[in-house]
């Protein structure tokens, strides 16, 4: 089992008048080499749960185990190291930095690894070749199309070769053609051995053939219907 969550809760602004319980007592197990989709309405807590799995948030209570390591309560430095080694993120709006070139965006996760510029260029080159964006290598990311932007985001998530890919509402701003392309790409990654967790309420995603498990969430809890 790659990921285990044991009674995980996350409360924002704890003890304040604007306290919000985003995730409540979630217990969950996600298998290796599976594609899991967290589904639910906006505000149901799926993005928060994804962020906890990705070590972006610390849970308020509960235990998170990823690849055999208990991550809750680890210092920021170790969490950053863990994210670097094990996780590739794909954001809702891709969060590609528009002023950087395509190649510069892709190598961002490699900079703290201490690789040589040539090693970084080689790794980025392989991925740009694979996703058909090598001709855009020197283009500022702000000047490329939505489809290309999506592929840059995937390439960036894969550049440090992480075993786990997390994608937060990745198709929210894509049309159906690009959404299908994206899901096909994730299916290829799954076939290559990656574990993928994504959040979405898009039927194109939840109904995709490569999705092994759909987990419904409501009011911060896993909803069993």
């Amino acid at each position: 089992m790659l990921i285990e969550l044991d009674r995980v809760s996350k409360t924002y602004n704890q003890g304040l008048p604007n306290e919000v319980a985003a995730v409540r007592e979630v217990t969950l197990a996600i298998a290796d080499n599976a594609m899991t989709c967290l589904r639910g309405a906006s505000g149901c807590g799926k993005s928060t749960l994804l962020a906890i799995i990705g070590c972006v948030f610390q849970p308020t209570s509960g235990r998170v185990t990823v690849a055999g390591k208990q991550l809750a309560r680890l210092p920021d430095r170790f969490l950053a190291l863990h994210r670097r080694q094990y996780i590739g993120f794909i954001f809702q709006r891709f969060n590609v930095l528009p002023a950087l070139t395509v190649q510069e965006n892709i190598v961002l996760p490699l900079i703290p690894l201490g690789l040589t510029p040539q090693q970084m260029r080689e790794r980025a080159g392989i991925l740009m070749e694979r996703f058909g964006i090598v001709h855009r290598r020197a283009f500022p990311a702000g000047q490329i199309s939505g489809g290309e932007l999506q592929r840059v985001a995937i390439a960036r998530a894969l550049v440090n070769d992480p075993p786990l890919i997390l994608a937060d509402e990745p198709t929210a701003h894509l049309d159906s053609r690009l959404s299908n392309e994206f899901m096909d790409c994730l299916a290829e990654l799954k076939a290559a051995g990656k574990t993928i967790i994504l959040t979405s309420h898009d039927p194109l995603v939840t109904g995709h053939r490569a999705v092994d498990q759909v987990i419904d969430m409501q009011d911060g809890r896993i909803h069993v219907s």
Partner: protein
Amino acid sequence: MDSGLRKHLNILDYTLLSLWRRRLKNLSILLVFAGVIFLVASFELVTQALTETADRALRNVPEITLQRLSAGRQETVPLTYMERLRGIFGIREIVPRVWGYYFDEVSGANYTVMGMDRRRMPGGKEMDLALARGDMPDPEERGAAVIGQGVETVLRQKGGSLLSLFRPDLSQVSFEIAGVFAPATDILTSDLIVLHPEDARDLFRIPSGMATDLLVYVANADEVSTIARKIATLLPDTRVLTRTQIRKTYQVVFGWRSGFASVCLLTALTAFVIFAWDKASGLSPEERREISVLKILGWETADILAIRFWEGLLVAGLAFVLGCTAAYVHVVFYDASLFRPVLVGWSVIRPDLRLLPTPELANFLLIFCGSVLPYLAATVIPAWRSASVPAETALSGM
């Protein structure tokens, strides 16, 4: 290469890229900062150059100058005092000097008129070397004057070749120009007119047997303070000035002027540092998003701080180099034309001396500590807050 070092080189590379991306903002900060450092460094260099020039010029000043005071004002000294001083062991020579200030109503300038017998002054012959042209007049020759560069300029503007001055009773007396002092001595000679002692006495109507002050030359430099103390005891109505005291007076004058200007400039520097602090602590949405993206991608808080540190160091370091270089060029090649009126002017005649500061590491270190370090502190400390931007900013789809 060690991967830790490689990581820092990569971060430095990213910093340069980041600076270039925000080049307009960074360039404007760089220029303002370099401007402030230029002003501070210019004042520092001008003060240093003036002190050095004064030091060089004061090397030939007698070890002790004796003046007589009455009711707190300077009075003429009876030449009979010279006899009383001869009893003090260690005095090499005593030379009476007649001098005073002369106000030229036409040009509005104040001249310093001095009459002395250079034959009796040790090293008096070397005064010829201080001249740009002409000669010191023969010691017996009356009616001749040696003038400073400033006086010559005024004389040239008047279009005359004779120096005409008025006695207190408004009767006129004229002098031939025998020589002109070299620009290198300008700090002391620019407004100076050197006459025969009797001519000076006649011009100021100082009675014979009196002098304005006495120059006392001492054989052993180590005994100057002892001899000065003995003179002060022997002649209690006199003020005894040593060369060291005169040098200190110059340093205080320049130091005060420079210090006053430095306080004003430090205010500007402080304002700039506060501005830098404000800029560094307030993050634009773009910057917040970039930081949170980097953190999610596995960058540590320390890595983000390293970017801020390098950004600050590069901007401040470059501003420091630019500011100091511009200050050196301004002082050496343009004679500190922006600050001369503040630091050099005493009267209408301003010394036209050439400023040649010797760059000293301590001076630049002082400027570095007073500018670059506060700027780094002002940018890196609030960057801690910036680096603590929650990573979820990127997740919430900003």
